[in-house]
């Protein structure tokens, strides 16, 4: 029956129940991921952010919170242009981080 509205799925994040394995695997392959301070320089310069809301800062937060669907959407339009790498004050190798994450996705046990 169509009431003209529907329930949207809950977007609550339960930090006690999130699975950090994807983040840990990512950090093994790209250790600089751990040094992110979430300053958002990458988000400000991103070429793809206008299209998919891409932001490396949010991607890193998202995989630690189990927001896999949102992260996948963000990753889907990255063009690997490397601006985020150049502006990062902590020297996070963002391009490698993104590529490795794209490879790891689906290997993780988290719900995707």
């Amino acid at each position, binding site marked *: 029956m169509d009431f003209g509205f529907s329930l949207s799925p809950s977007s609550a994040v339960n930090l006690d129940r999130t699975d950090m394995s994807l983040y840990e695997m990512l950090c093994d392959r790209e250790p*600089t991921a751990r040094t992110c301070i979430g300053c958002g320089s990458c988000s400000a*310069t991103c*070429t793809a952010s*206008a*299209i998919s809301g891409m932001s490396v800062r949010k991607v890193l937060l998202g995989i630690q919170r189990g927001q896999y669907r949102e992260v*996948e959407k963000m*990753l*889907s*339009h*990255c*063009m*690997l*242009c*490397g*601006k985020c*790498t*150049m*502006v*990062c004050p902590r*020297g996070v*190798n963002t*391009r*490698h981080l993104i*590529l490795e*994450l*794209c*490879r*790891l*996705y*689906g*290997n993780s046990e988290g719900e995707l």
Partner: protein
Amino acid sequence: MRERFASGFDPFVIPFLIGMAFVLGYCLFGMLRIWFQLPRKDRRKVVLSLITPKGIWKNVKDIFANCLLHVKLWKRNPVLGYMHSSIAFGWFMLIVLGHIEVWLFLPERLRLFYYPIFFNFFVAESESTIQGAVIFFLMDFFLLVVLSGIVLAMIKRVRSRIFGMRRTTNPSFLDRIGLYALWSIFPLRLLCESFTAHISGGSFLTLPMNWIFRQFLGNSMNALPTWWAYSIALGVFMCVLPFTRYMHIPAEMMLIPLRNAGLHILHPRKGFARLQFFSCPGCGVCIDACPMSAKKENIKDCTVYLNRQLRRGNEERIEQISDKCLLCGKCTAVCQVGVQGPEMRIAQRMLRRYAVNQHYTDIDPTKFVPEGGSSAKVLYFAGCMTHLTPAIGRSVRSVLDKAGVGFKMMDPDGGLCCGRPMMMAGRREQTRELIRINTDIIRASGCNTLLLSCPICYRIFKEKYSLEGIRVVHHSVYFDELIKQGRLKISGKTLRKLAYHDPCELGRGCGIYEQPRSAVSAVGTLVEAEKNREESICCGGSLGSLSLSYEKRKDITLASLRNLTVADPDTIVTACPLCQTTYGNYSEIPVKDIAQLIDDASK
């Protein structure tokens, strides 16, 4: 000349025959394997290139110049060139002259494969020898040439600096066996021919040695064991050849025609790439050339070691080496056989499978089509890197205004990426999509010139986009033209010393060296870096490397800066926003883009 043995055979030739049969069989099998790994289209290309007289002439010329005379090595370092060409050309001439001897004196023995090699053992001098004196002389002469090369090769093992090489490769175990076998072949040949010189005749080298030996060796019992040793040395060399770096000798002869046919690497292990890594002589010239070797830990990531690992099939190391490389292309520029290190690595990256695949199908190109009248025929695409260095973009626009060029921006508020970084990451599908969208935008803008201020963009627009009717031009070239045409007036020519850095993608990538230099000279005094043009050193900021982190690039940048500042310039000039940013982080003197320089000096 008459025969000493009616059978024309002696058991000592057997090791040589085994080696020869093995190496010929191996090479034939390998050639067929590579041939059938090539796509049908490529095979057609090769066949077509081989049936034209021009194609055949070019192949013969290249094989002769590169495989025998080593012309490229001579240009690099004369001693190194002499060492290689003396061994290769000298050995070749010994084989050719051996055949001529047999053909002259005992033509019916030409069908025996080993006869020309061991000719002096099987024959005895007769009255007709005088005709052969010239050949005997030449045989001794070329043997001496080869021996001089071998002596140099031994010196090189100990002191490679004399040959202009700071670092060289560590030979593997089998490489060493091949090396020692090769070294022993020619001294043994000299001994053999000396022992039999009083029977079969000789010349200025072998006859005196024969005389000396006879002073203290009463009998000729030494001759046969020495011929055995010579044959065994040849046999060992040929049996290990396929597993050593000496495989480059046969492989390069096949590589040259295939390269001349214009083939590209499509798979890192098959076909053309396979031929390339077998053609690698392991000389290690790429080690000194590689910008990464500024740090000792990166030496094992140079192209010569990639080739070695590809031959060994060491997957883990292949992946690491492929990811680390900056793809600056310098190893290819200095390589004697033309192994395409960056292309091999990109091909390796192409093999990867990703769980998340980027797609751009939902991007609407019409949203990016620049507004403004169709009168402006120049479309300026700043690209990602110029957006990050807005001063360069501002200078480009200012120069265009000063010269009165009507233009419009393709990406005033940030556009899409050109696709080159995706391509370098080996993601062909994504690159193709970006190219399609950008092409639509450019076509819809109605321009006839596409101006770019980033060499990374410039290279892919030049190589992969099909933009017939639209001129793709880099800003350094365009501004040089504006100055030469007098449309742009330079007012402030200074006496400042300007060192120009060739960005990898613009120089080695697209072959543009002169126009930027001409533009820089119009503004100030141009000084050169120690290594420039084809051998310029990557700034270290390249997008080609996937795994090198920011900190690990520091030493590369510092080494590159040292190279740039040998002439003590006042300013470093480059034509790439990425190089400018990278140098800017560490340089003590100002680093400017060519656009900023021209903007400052013009009115």
